[in-house]
């Protein structure tokens, strides 16, 4: 009986846990509760994934109202995969959060932090499971509003300005999305995603549909920081509390990309193949620009968190590149990279957050000789950094391999060369961190110590994940391949 209600429970458990968390008022209690809920959400997501892999997509009618009139929760392979990523990152970050946040925030704000975190989790999960285009907007705003608060809680006053900028751009993005959905609704009279896909081809006047698609694409691109629309991202991730930065860097942008895949392929895929709309040209151009330029900007950053955030913008470029390729191999690369980059960047932000615990802000200069003081942390950064670059044997290699294969399949050798070149830029900026940490002498009087085990173990779980999913591609690449296949809906 409960199995059948899993799609609702996935969202409802964190959503109702959030107000309860606000009532608890004691930092430790609230933390324990939020951790428990995060792990429960992971269990639910794992159950859903196994169910979807064995029996196919699940549909759940909220309030027992039949779709397309009622809101439908619809979970297929890719959404189940995203659920596991989001809840998995949440479950790993929460044990880390207690010590890290206690050092960064005043004690009376901690219960509110956990409340906002649970709301953000519920919003992200809701965006993934729902099959209703307007419901997506509601969950998107739940996730966004709570993440603005999470960022504004950051320890320095710059966090406020970062949160404000994210609020303005994030709201514009969400409003663009809702304008686009409005056009589709006006032309088809439905908001259900599956129903939209069926009705779009029947519409006579095509122009509003195209305009709607453009609004949705730009709005979502703002949300996941596609290259020229990325200005909110470096500040937001650099000044947020470390645990929040790790959670959002690994999940928030990924869910927005997932929505874009949903609209490009599920809703528009059959009636409007992307090449007909000249989308691949624009998309690949912006992706390549992001991969190269954001990486170059990352090289010139002194603040390590800003560097990692700009590197996220570059990595988003890889993901959108796979979308632009519009082939099964390319799309598999995109979906795998969603997952692999999530755990890689999550690991890096957690580890750098550990350094920030003792040194305050983390600049290249403050890293001098820190490898001797924090050998385990730096070893983790080395491995996760290798995954970011895409060295064989790490998770990052798998996804870049698929993307290069996809590019070669199209006969675009130059694109394969660009992917390799961008990886070399990643070598440069990660190299700056490693050079400072391993080769420079430690300044006298440096007090850095290894971070506590409660922070080190979660970070290392993700680091081990980077290697594990690089060697054993059954889970990630296999599921991503199935998801890509289903999205394209073409014969094998």
């Amino acid at each position: 009986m409960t199995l059948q209600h899993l799609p609702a429970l996935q969202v409802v458990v964190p959503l109702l846990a959030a107000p309860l968390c606000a009532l608890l008022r004691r930092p430790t209690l609230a933390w324990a509760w939020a951790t428990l809920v995060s792990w429960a959400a992971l269990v639910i997501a794992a159950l859903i994934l196994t169910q979807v892999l064995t029996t196919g997509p699940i549909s759940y009618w909220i309030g027992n109202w039949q779709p397309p009139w009622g809101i439908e929760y619809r979970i297929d392979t890719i959404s189940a995969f995203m659920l596991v990523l989001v809840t998995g990152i949440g479950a790993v970050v929460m044990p880390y959060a207690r010590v890290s946040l206690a050092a960064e925030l005043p004690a009376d704000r901690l219960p509110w932090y956990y409340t906002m975190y649970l709301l953000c989790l519920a919003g992200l999960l809701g965006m993934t499971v729902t099959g209703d285009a307007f419901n997506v907007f509601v969950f998107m705003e739940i996730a966004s509003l709570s993440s603005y608060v999470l960022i504004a809680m950051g320890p320095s006053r710059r966090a406020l300005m970062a949160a404000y900028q994210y609020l303005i751009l994030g709201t514009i993005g969400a409003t663009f999305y809702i304008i686009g959905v409005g056009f589709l609704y006006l032309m088809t009279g439905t908001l259900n995603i599956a129903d939209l896909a069926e009705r779009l081809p029947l519409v006579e006047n095509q122009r509003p549909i195209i305009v709607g698609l453009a609004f949705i694409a730009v709005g979502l691109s703002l949300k996941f920081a596609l290259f020229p629309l990325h200005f909110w991202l470096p500040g937001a991730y650099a000044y947020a509390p470390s645990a929040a930065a790790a959670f959002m860097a690994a999940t928030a942008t990924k869910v927005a990309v997932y929505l874009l895949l949903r609209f490009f392929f599920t809703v528009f895929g059959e009636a409007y193949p992307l090449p007909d709309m000249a989308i691949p040209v624009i998309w690949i151009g912006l992706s390549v620009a992001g991969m190269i330029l954001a990486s170059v900007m990352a090289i010139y950053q002194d603040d390590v968190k800003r560097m990692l955030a700009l590197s996220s913008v570059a990595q988003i470029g890889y993901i959108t590149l796979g979308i632009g390729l519009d082939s099964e191999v390319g799309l598999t690369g995109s979906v795998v990279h969603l997952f692999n980059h999530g755990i890689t960047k999550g690991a890096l932000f957690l580890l750098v957050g550990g350094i920030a615990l003792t040194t305050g802000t983390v600049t290249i200069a403050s890293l001098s000789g820190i490898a001797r003081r924090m050998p385990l942390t730096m070893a983790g950064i080395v491995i996760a950094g290798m995954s970011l670059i895409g060295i064989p044997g790490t998770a990052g290699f798998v996804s870049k391999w698929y993307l290069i294969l996809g590019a070669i399949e199209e006969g675009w050798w130059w694109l394969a060369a660009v992917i390799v070149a961008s990886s070399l830029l990643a070598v440069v900026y990660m190299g700056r961190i490693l050079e400072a940490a391993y080769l420079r002498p430690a300044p006298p009087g440096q007090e850095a110590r290894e971070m506590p085990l409660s922070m080190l173990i979660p970070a290392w779980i993700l680091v081990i994940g980077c290697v594990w999913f690089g060697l054993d591609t059954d889970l990630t690449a296999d599921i991503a391949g199935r998801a890509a296949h289903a999205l394209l809906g073409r014969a094998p």
Partner: protein
Amino acid sequence: MDIVIAQFSNTVTVILMVLGLYVVLARGNLIKKLIGLSIFQTSVYLLYVGPGKIIGGTAPIIAEGFDVYSNPLPHVLMLTAIVVGVATLALGLAITVRIHEAYGTIEEDEILKKDGDA
């Protein structure tokens, strides 16, 4: 000119939309930016609600003597969007108050100067 009159509701929508977005981008004052953002969001309410109304239509309750009904769904959707808009505005204002306390100004360029970014 004819098209402006025929599409009056849509014209107003577009004007509000562009106006709001322009204010957000062109003004450096954090409060003015939020005002622009609110105008921008308001245009969306009009985008949905305008076409949902049928002239001469009534509320969709089955009753003797009425057979033209307006679509209630856009109103429900926009009620949600209004709540979201209010929440966003409240949060934006709250952050602006905190920024004012931290920096002593709400002009974007002055704030960036104080942090040494500009």
